[in-house]
């Protein structure tokens, strides 16, 4: 599962966004956004506050439908699909403010994320059919495996609200991976973490990228995290893409410096 940085034409991109624009009334939150993520990439999306980063994620995960433009996930268009359908195409995401199901155990949090693939319905669940039993055992095994590799097994029967903040972040990523995504969107995974926890998170994301067959696209404000992790970074401001390239280019890009620090000629 080597990271693949060179885009190749014969491989379908995991995510392709063409000319995406999102208009909220008079506000143009995202305008003419284009991106192409190839399998195995680890890309960053940065920008000042209110630049429209989370809106881009909301659009890609199907939470909003773009006003103009097209989104393809693994080559399939997401236009008109409900978010759970988009998820089923292979996108999973985490949230800026953790959104775990707090009154369900950690194990159930992981299990319910398999809901789309349950393959049984109400009557199977009531009559406990063979398929029900098969699927439930299978799901339990997979969930336990996931908790095991994420080192969360000791919290399996705990409620997420009782876990430390860093662990909740980790659990949310584990829950997202439980849907077996091809594309993982991380919305500020390091928000609210101290520098030691942020270091752990860098290690975790790198490990996920190496272990799971998944393309990662992340929003982050901690520049050190981004510079260390990402191969490609895209910078947006006021919904417009202002720069993209590798971390070194971004660091010295005049438009980025202007966006973050302001212009020096008044």
């Amino acid at each position: 599962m080597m990271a693949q940085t060179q885009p190749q034409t014969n491989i379908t991109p995991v995510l392709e966004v063409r000319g995406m624009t999102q208009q909220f009334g008079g506000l143009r939150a995202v305008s003419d956004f284009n991106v192409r993520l190839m399998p195995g990439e680890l890309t960053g999306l940065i920008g000042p506050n209110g630049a429209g980063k989370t809106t881009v994620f909301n659009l890609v995960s199907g939470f909003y439908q773009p006003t103009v433009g097209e989104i393809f996930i693994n080559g399939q268009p997401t236009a008109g699909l409900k978010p759970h359908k988009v998820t089923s195409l292979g996108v999973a995401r985490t949230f800026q403010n953790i959104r775990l199901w707090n009154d369900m155990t950690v194990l159930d949090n992981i299990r319910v994320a398999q809901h789309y693939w349950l393959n049984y319905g109400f009557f199977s669940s009531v009559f406990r059919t063979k398929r029900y039993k098969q699927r439930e055992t299978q799901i339990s095994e997979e969930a336990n495996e996931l908790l095991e590799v994420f080192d969360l097994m000791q919290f399996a029967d705990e409620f997420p609200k009782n876990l430390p903040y860093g662990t909740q972040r980790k659990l949310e990523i584990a829950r997202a991976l439980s849907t077996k995504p091809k594309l993982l969107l991380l919305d500020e995974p390091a928000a609210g973490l101290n520098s030691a926890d942020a270091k752990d998170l860098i290690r975790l994301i790198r490990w996920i990228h190496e272990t799971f067959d998944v393309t990662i696209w992340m929003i982050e404000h901690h520049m050190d995290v981004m510079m260390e992790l990402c191969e490609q970074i895209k910078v947006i401001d006021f919904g417009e893409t202002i720069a993209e390239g590798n971390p070194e280019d971004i660091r010295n890009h005049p438009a980025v410096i202007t966006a973050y620090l302001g212009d020096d000629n008044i």
Partner: protein
Amino acid sequence: MKHHSLNALLAIVAVLLLVAAHFGWIDNYIQIVVMTIGINIIMSTSLNLVNGNMGEFTCGHAGFMCVGAYVSSIISVLCFGSKFGDPMLPAGSVLFVFPFILLIGGAVAAVSSLLVSVPSFKTRDDYLAIISIAVNYMIISALENMNFIGGSRGFQGMKDTYWAMIDIFDGPWMLFWVINFTIFTVWVIRRFISSTYGKGVNAICQDEVAAEIMSVNTNKIKIINFMVAAGLAGCAGGLYAHIIGYVNPQSFNILKSTEAMVMVYLGGMGSLSGAIISAILFTTLMEILRSQAIIDGMLSPVTFIFPDWEPSAGVIKWVMIPLLLVIVMQFRPEGIMGNRELSDVFPKLKKFYRFK
């Protein structure tokens, strides 16, 4: 077989009740109370599915009970009664057909729940509560205007079905059906909410956005959950109609819905055992407060001061019960059980039964 001792206990209690009723060891009044408890358990556990597990706020549950009551009554009269002409089925088949009559009533009630579940895609909380009250009124008013089934005068003739059962065997049939359907309801709900499929309902309750993003088809699950709840309430309505032998749209008005809600909130949101316990407590309390002697006794300090005041049990009951609700909400807002089950409170119970 330790895991099945609860099932065995339930079976023994059920058989004892039936035997006692059959040989007249418990009188008709007690039987009616037991049947009301059963119906109330069905109502509170099914409403708990929506208000507790899914965290929606609906207060029109009696509307679905009404649909079930009317549909099963009409089918019952068509099949075994003489009101609409000759009975369509031989009286001997009643024991096989009757549960299906109830289930058909439940199925139609389940379909009618679409009136609430479809708006619930985009509406929540107070707004959904208003929609559910509106649906309750719609159902009642529609039935009041259907003169061919009695309109506001009510509908009767279901006792023929009961007599057909009595002709086969002279026993406490309605008690039998109520016990069976109560156990059926709890069985269905427990299995549904303990499956990963049913836990999607809990996920919607706790974070609908996260549920949708994490691949739960929230709209479908909402429809199914509402349908299960309304369907079971419809079965309860059918049982109620056949016990009383008479239905009137006004017996299923907002007051009846409120009763179901009181039981859910008393028992604790999202707790199946809480809903059962509170249904038993609530029904018993209602019956106790129906007695004029007890009301007089309780209020004797007040009537001593105001000798002219003669409290009537029927009215004071509706002062006492809301007062109880106020007290519970003040001092234990999470209800008797909170969102925990009996097995969480007494872990030793797990030895006797798998609460899964």
